């Protein structure tokens, strides 16, 4: 690691002010992406701002048809929360698929979303459920938040404080792992809430998480895997690397979307 100074603010305001003063500073949430990157000297922020002492950033609350999860809530806490398991079971399940048990004890939803790794799981859930991301400055719709690989709508000195999830009627997530990294080679999240049908894909796109409008349109007619039969997406714009070609990823998007819809309606995809 390169040398840095370490800050532990007590409030979001203090954190934001530190961030405003130090343009190259980084926020430390769970640290499970940032610290490995720093260890490999691929990042060298001169200041590190640890959010863990700030009261009120972690926690899970349901109010009516919406579930709110604090930015510093650990993956394991989402995974094991009876509230989440009851309201949006797939979200609890998805949190349990991130990294490994030890990683889930540290990693946070806010950190994952702010990082917007193109292979991460939470961005698919956020886009696939149409969440609202709440920061110290404003509320941002998921559709506007994820702006490309490792890139978000967050402005300098803007800090995610919580994520507000509308509770869907049906939802499921299918993750096909990169066997080495265990990130999603392709992950497809589907949901249905009234007429709002969403299909969000992580891992596959060369520009990060995205929605598949053709699948959504087909599912609007009937929310069934049959509606997606024979459907695929173009390989253009898909990632291609040693773990899978663009064609393979495009193919998997179709397969996993069908399986996810089947899971959402409680049927086998076969």
């Amino acid at each position, binding site marked *: 690691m*390169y*040398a840095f100074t*370490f800050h532990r603010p007590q409030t979001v305001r203090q954190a934001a002010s530190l961030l405003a003063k130090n343009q190259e500073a980084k926020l430390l949430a769970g*640290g499970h992406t940032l610290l490995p990157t720093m260890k490999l000297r691929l990042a060298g922020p001169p200041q590190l701002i640890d959010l863990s002492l700030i009261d009120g950033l972690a926690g899970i609350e349901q109010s009516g048809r919406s579930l709110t999860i604090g930015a510093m809530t650990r993956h394991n806490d989402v995974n094991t929360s009876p509230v989440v398991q009851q309201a949006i079971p797939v979200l609890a399940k998805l949190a349990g698929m991130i990294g*490994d*048990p*030890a990683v889930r004890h540290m990693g946070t939803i806010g950190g994952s979303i702010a990082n917007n790794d193109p292979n991460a799981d939470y961005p698919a859930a956020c886009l696939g459920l149409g969440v609202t991301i709440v920061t110290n400055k404003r509320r941002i719709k998921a559709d506007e938040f994820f702006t490309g690989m490792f890139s978000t709508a967050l402005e300098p000195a803007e800090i995610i404080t919580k994520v507000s999830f509308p509770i869907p009627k049906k939802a499921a997530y299918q993750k096909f792992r990169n066997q080495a990294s265990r990130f999603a080679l392709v992950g497809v999240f589907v949901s249905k809430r009234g007429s709002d049908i969403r299909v969000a894909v992580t891992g596959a796109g060369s520009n990060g998480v995205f929605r598949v409008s053709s699948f959504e349109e087909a599912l609007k007619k009937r929310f069934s895997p049959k509606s997606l039969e024979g459907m695929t997406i173009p390989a253009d714009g898909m990632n291609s690397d040693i773990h899978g070609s663009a064609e393979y990823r495009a193919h998997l998007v179709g397969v996993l979307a069908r399986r996810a819809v089947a899971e959402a309606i409680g049927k086998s995809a076969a």
Partner: protein
Amino acid sequence: MAANTAAVSLTVNGKPVTAEVDPRTLLVQLLREHLRLTGTHVGCDTSQCGACVVHVNGKATKSCTVLALQLGGANVLTIEGLAAPDGPLHPMQEAFRENHGLQCGYCTPGMIMTAVDMVRRKGNDLDEHTIREELEGNICRCTGYHNIVKAIAAGARAMRGTSAAKAAE
């Protein structure tokens, strides 16, 4: 040591510890280099192999991916603290020995700490599928996992009704 240092106080294996560290110091470095607790190992630099797993406030944590300065006031348990130096082994340690769940021994401390945490979260009756899934963050190159899986299942059963699970927290 760089001029830029900071103090951190925490509890390690039940003993209060205060150290003056470079902010870059990872928990695993604090343990190995400052406290000479060398049972916690480093096997990779991408937070995947799990050789460095310890418990922080009762939860399995990769000590290579936490800064010492993040842990002010924390309670850390390492493999050295799982059983008294000359006392009886923890049931999970005993199960690893009894089931030949280790060969070179390098990944073993992380495996055992992960296994004890697994029991805390998943209970004493662990089926093979659960154990294999739960080992996603621990890599062993020697055993092919076969005997590790057996050891964890046996260790979990042996922990039933003992204070071991509690002591691990």
